């Protein structure tokens, strides 16, 4: 009897813990605008109309979930802060004026997805059916976006995917997804190019989170490393909730690796970096996904020194109009400096690439509505498919082939590394590509 009860309790415990993981029920409320400063004239302005506006005003509802709790909280909140800044700026600038005199303004409906796929599917269904969202922005992270994309496609909604780099979601016949990030398969290409010039003999270990995003990065990375003649001495995945990286680091050291490429998201990446430092793994170069791109990363102290990341955008290497002219592409939106100044005024923090991604997600939708001269989803979809612009965030151009519809084609990444400035403070410097680098790579980081 007692044993049977123990068995029952065992099952209950596991079920309860799973429920517990989904526990924190945040209040479902529309997102409050984050910024406090009025938009500047350089902000994405409303389109000029030659005729005085007719009084008609349309409010476009944009729906998305954000991870206010759970594993994706840090990056997700930044993405939402960027989006909110864009929305406040465009609304305060008077919205978008269409040629028929209609003024388009925006409102957002958002819920806490708790970093859980199940919640994402439930909430995106709600956003579409109950809140009647006109357009969708993706949640943060590839895993959550994959879950949201199914609901969006089923309901024929357009979804700008901001914080989702994984390639697969665009290769399943979807027609409503439009990706802003450089695809995961190309994520570490710049880093490998840099290594090729720094140390072509480097022995590479790939240690990554076992999730959709990191796995897609590795799938693109491995063949490119081999093509460039690098020896891969270790490839290892770890579970998302891993906290003890001791055994992995021991494997890494045992493999004779001199360079580590890998990581996943903020919680695991920051933990991994700290333990690599504590255990004096003796690597010449460490590049981790996502975590080192966040402004929280220096909280690790000296463990952050020398850790590099592939970044979708860095203020120090922000794109500009001259670049756009040289490429023959039309420039759109504010400069990186103006965007950063507005964000800093609103939050007192410097923007990361997650913030920029959220902001540009709104800006791309704005541009598509302007180009379509309509908020009709089909016309907006056509405008997105035809889009080929250049912004402070970089190029925006989507694949329109049935094989990879919506995949980002133009955007490119930089490599950033935490270094110390003259005052001994940790700062994130751009170290690659060489033409936009703000500092030389710190290589080797630690004596091997």
């Amino acid at each position, binding site marked *: 009897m007692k044993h049977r009860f123990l068995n029952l309790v065992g099952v209950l415990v596991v079920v309860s813990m799973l429920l517990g993981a989904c526990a924190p029920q945040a209040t479902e409320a529309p997102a409050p605008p984050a910024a406090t400063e009025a938009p500047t004239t350089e902000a994405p302005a409303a389109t000029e109309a030659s005729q005085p506006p007719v009084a008609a005003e349309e409010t476009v509802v944009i729906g998305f979930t954000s991870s206010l709790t759970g594993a994706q909280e840090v990056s997700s909140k930044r993405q939402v802060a960027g989006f909110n800044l864009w929305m406040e700026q465009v609304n305060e600038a008077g919205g978008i004026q269409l040629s028929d005199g209609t003024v388009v303004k925006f409102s957002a409906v958002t819920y806490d997805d708790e970093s859980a796929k199940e919640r994402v599917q439930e909430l995106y269904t709600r956003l579409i059916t109950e809140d009647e969202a006109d357009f969708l922005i993706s949640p943060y992270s590839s895993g959550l976006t994959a879950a949201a994309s199914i609901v969006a496609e089923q309901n024929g909604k357009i979804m700008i995917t901001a914080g989702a780099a994984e390639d697969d979601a665009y290769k399943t016949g979807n027609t409503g997804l439009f990706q802003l990030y450089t695809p995961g398969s190309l994520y570490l290409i710049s880093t490998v190019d840099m290594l090729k010039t720094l140390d072509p003999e480097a022995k590479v270990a790939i240690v990554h989170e076992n999730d959709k995003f990191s796995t897609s990065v590795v799938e693109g990375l491995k063949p490119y490393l081999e093509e460039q003649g690098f020896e891969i001495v270790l490839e290892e995945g770890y579970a998302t909730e891993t906290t003890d990286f001791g055994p992995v680091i021991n494997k890494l050291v045992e493999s004779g690796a001199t360079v580590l490429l890998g990581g996943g998201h903020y919680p695991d990446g920051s933990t991994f970096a700290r333990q690599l430092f*504590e255990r004096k793994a003796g690597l010449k170069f460490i590049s981790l996904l996502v975590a080192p791109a966040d402004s929280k990363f220096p909280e690790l102290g000296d463990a952050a020194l020398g850790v590099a990341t592939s970044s979708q955008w860095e203020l120090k290497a922000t794109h500009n109009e001259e670049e756009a002219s040289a490429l023959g592409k039309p420039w759109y939106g504010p400069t990186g400096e103006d965007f950063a100044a507005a964000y800093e005024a609103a939050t007192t923090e410097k923007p990361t690439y997650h913030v920029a991604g959220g902001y540009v997600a709104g800006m791309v939708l704005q541009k598509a509505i302007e180009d379509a001269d309509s908020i009709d989803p089909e016309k907006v979809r056509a405008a997105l498919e035809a889009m080929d612009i250049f912004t402070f965030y970089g190029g925006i151009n989507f694949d329109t082939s049935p094989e990879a519809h919506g995949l980002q084609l133009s955007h490119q990444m930089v490599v950033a590394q935490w270094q110390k400035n003259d005052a001994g403070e940790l700062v994130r410097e751009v170290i690659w590509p060489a033409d936009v680098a703000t500092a030389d790579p710190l290589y080797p980081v630690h004596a091997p």
Partner: protein
Amino acid sequence: MQQLNLLLTSLPDGILLGFVYGLAAMGLTLIWGVMNVINLSHGPIIALGMFGTFFLFSRLGLNPYLGLIPVAVVGLLLGILIYAVAVHRVINAPHLSSLLATFSVNMIIIGLGTAVLTTSPYNVDFSAGGFKLGSATILGTRLIAALVAMLFTGGLYLFLYRTRPGKFIRAVANNRTAAELMGIPSTRVLALSFGLGTMLAMVSGALIATFFPFSILAGGSYELKSFVIGVLGGLGNPIGALFGGLVLGMLEGIIPAFLETSWVPVIEFALFVVILLVRPSGLFGAKQ
């Protein structure tokens, strides 16, 4: 040969970590052993211990090991409070009631913690150095944590077997009705037991915070480990929990030498199910 070397490198780490896992599990299993209550608030209580270290060290500058004293005291009092508010009224009700009561406490702590502390990771930037033992790196924080865990285990053993309140606890665990007939104040003993279990959970959390980053949700994985350890060592057997912790810690050191690290939780929970099916009283026997 390479795998053997890897095994020797990772094993000390696993063993040291196992002591701390064992300490966490001891809190859970003590409560089960004395009052047949599965404490589902165990995980968030571990997380509160982590935040105890964070605030005492990062905000007040107190050495994390000295900080264990206030953490332990708060843990004891918190446990008594939880018992009085949530557990006492359902102590004689069907097991599902106490399960739901402690689950509610779990939800309350996580909800409050999320509102106040968010779920962002926190980091205690503390180092106690380290040294090489052959090819293995022994981190000072883990070594001290293991020693503290042993100290607490020894202390608990002495308390249970050498003191009057400890004997009361064992008497109540053995037969509550008989203990009451002998004049033992069972309510106070149960509250003390819950307090001790909570104290052990918070102290283990406080130790874990010295080497791993954490959030208010971080206790969940240690709670699950505590259940595996509890079942492994024998639910209700606090000393068995320490050995269960060592077994789990060693597994975490051994498995990555032969398989990908992501197999660790799979094997741990497979073991949990196997032990439940084959030897539900655990490797070291259930409560005595």
